[in-house]
């Protein structure tokens, strides 16, 4: 068997009847790893046919050689047969072969496995719901811990790791400025373009300023910024704390008397809390500029008309409520990211999983908070 064009095989499998009640598979030749795939598929067909209560022994007396890989497959198939209630043993193996069989546990008795009933859709749905509730509960518990820690900090401000505040603000705030500006400018522009077509029909060109002004400050400025920060900083926090957790760095910190809440979570969340309103203000501004570009280019407005209308339409409260909302967003992003990061278990893969879930949970929460804000402010007529 030198090349693929030379299909002569060094092994064969042949089913024979061993005694009236049973069957056996007679194996011949050298069973070696390069042929493993063929051996597997050939044996598979015979194994699948074997019925519960029958026998299917593996007859090895004509086998010259078996290597470890193939032996592992044979032992696996035998164990599977036994689990299904088919009697199966290696028979007729020479002494040398017997040792390999023993090495791969081809001679241990495998008990019959009880079939577990597959779980129904309803079960799975219920479990998934429970898992979600569990996650929500964990985040809320974390919020509680954070509040307690914050109260402690008021009494002993020195206990927070303030050193990390400025670098974190720089990374989550200053470094995010370009992308926040770009995205919000484009969002303002796209919205104005969509509106322009409609507004022109009614000759209501000037109202583009109202539309953009209100929706950027109250809604889109805070939300788009939060989404960007969730993707940038939220993911970064979750991954960073997650890998610290799996490296036992968090445990090491705790044994040195640094609680992760004060040492890691507070500076990060506080940094977001401080930079988010600033970023949101910038976002509001460039969003409005995006609207202006459209107003100038396709709605025949001048910038003074646009800004006068903007001043009439947008109240200070519109901007404030947006900033307030952005701070709640910041809190949610920081808390969820840190909570998920600290809940990481199980190596690099766990870090990846928690980073993903931190972003997903945060996005969901952001939308939830946004909706709550809108409904609440409407209800209070603000």
């Amino acid at each position: 068997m030198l090349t693929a064009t030379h299909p002569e095989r060094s092994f064969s499998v042949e089913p024979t009847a061993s005694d009236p009640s049973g069957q056996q598979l007679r194996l011949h030749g050298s069973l070696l790893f390069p042929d493993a795939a063929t051996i597997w598929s050939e044996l598979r067909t015979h194994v699948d046919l074997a019925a519960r209560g029958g026998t299917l022994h593996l007859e090895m007396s004509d086998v010259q050689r078996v290597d470890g890989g193939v032996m592992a497959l044979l032992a696996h198939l035998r164990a599977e047969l036994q689990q299904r209630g088919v009697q199966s043993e290696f028979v007729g193996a020479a002494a040398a072969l017997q040792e390999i069989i023993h090495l791969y546990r081809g001679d241990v008795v495998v008990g019959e496995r009880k079939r577990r009933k597959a779980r129904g859709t309803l079960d799975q749905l219920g479990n998934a719901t429970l898992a979600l509730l569990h996650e929500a509960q964990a985040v809320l518990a974390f919020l509680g811990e954070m509040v307690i820690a914050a109260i402690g900090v008021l009494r002993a401000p020195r206990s927070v790791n303030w050193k990390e505040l400025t670098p974190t603000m720089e990374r989550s705030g200053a470094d995010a400025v370009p992308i926040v500006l770009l995205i919000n400018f484009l969002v303002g522009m796209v919205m104005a373009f969509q509106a322009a077509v409609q507004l022109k029909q009614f000759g209501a060109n000037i109202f583009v300023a109202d539309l953009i002004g209100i929706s950027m400050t109250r809604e889109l400025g805070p939300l788009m910024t939060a989404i960007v920060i969730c993707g940038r900083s939220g993911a970064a926090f979750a991954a960073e704390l997650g890998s610290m957790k799996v490296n036992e760095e968090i445990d090491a910190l705790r044994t040195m008397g640094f609680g992760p809440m004060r040492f890691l979570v507070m500076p990060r969340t506080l940094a977001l809390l401080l930079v988010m309103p600033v970023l949101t203000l910038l976002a509001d501004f460039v969003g409005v500029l995006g609207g202006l570009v459209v107003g100038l280019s396709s709605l025949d407005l001048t910038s003074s008309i646009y800004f006068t209308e903007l001043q009439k339409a947008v109240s200070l409260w519109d901007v404030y409520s947006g900033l307030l909302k952005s701070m709640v967003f910041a809190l949610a992003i920081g808390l969820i990211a840190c909570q998920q990061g600290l809940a990481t278990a199980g190596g690099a893969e766990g870090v990846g999983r928690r980073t993903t879930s931190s972003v997903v949970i945060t996005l969901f929460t952001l939308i939830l908070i946004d909706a709550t804000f809108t409904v609440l402010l409407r209800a209070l007529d603000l």
Partner: protein
Amino acid sequence: MNPPLDPPLIQVTDLSIGWDDVILQQHANFQVARGDVFVILGSSGCGKSTMLRALIGLERPLAGEVSIEGAVSTRIETGAPPFGVMFQSGALLGSMTVGENIALPLQEWTQLPPPAIFAIVQARLRLVGMQGSEDKLPSELSGGMRKRAAIARAMALEPSLVFLDEPSAGLDPVSAAMLDELILTLNTKLGLTLVVVTHDLDSIFKIAKHCIMLDRDSMSIIASGDPRALRDSSSDPRVHDFFNRSTAHAP
């Protein structure tokens, strides 16, 4: 040793450790005397690290309690740390240099000015044979160096009790022997109590005054006492195999 006069430093009563679905040890009772070098032994995966974490207070026990100096450890992260810990993986903070790692507890828990802290950092590094590495990041160190730096950090605050999880695993024989010397020196000259997890037989016979051996299958402590005596006279085949590096009784 006279128990009533000299209460144990660590008292473990009826301790069970594990998680909801896995139980690693049940009803463990032992004590560590002041000035002891106490070694926790056992095959890989039997729960030595978990036992250590339970002693430290990082792992909530399923049942029973651990008290250190008469106080039941509940929340470790409040107040100055009562002991030093070296984790199996070193667990140096990756974002800080070796020097900053060692300086961290000193900055938080002492009133020392920066030059004094620097002096202590250098002295600790010299103790573990890593002088001059204070400006390196943990990622720039070899596995063995990381462990030694972690020992230096565990020693930073001059604790009277130190926990070491497999300090010599992954070190070359000479460094491992040096580490054993270090442990002995700390114990005899400075009166430190050490709780050490290790597999290394040479090191066990050299440093250990007392040991306990954990077993996964029976979920219990299968031997305790002086390792030399256990080697020579234990009738338990599992203990005999361990100390004599044999597999004669392995299943």
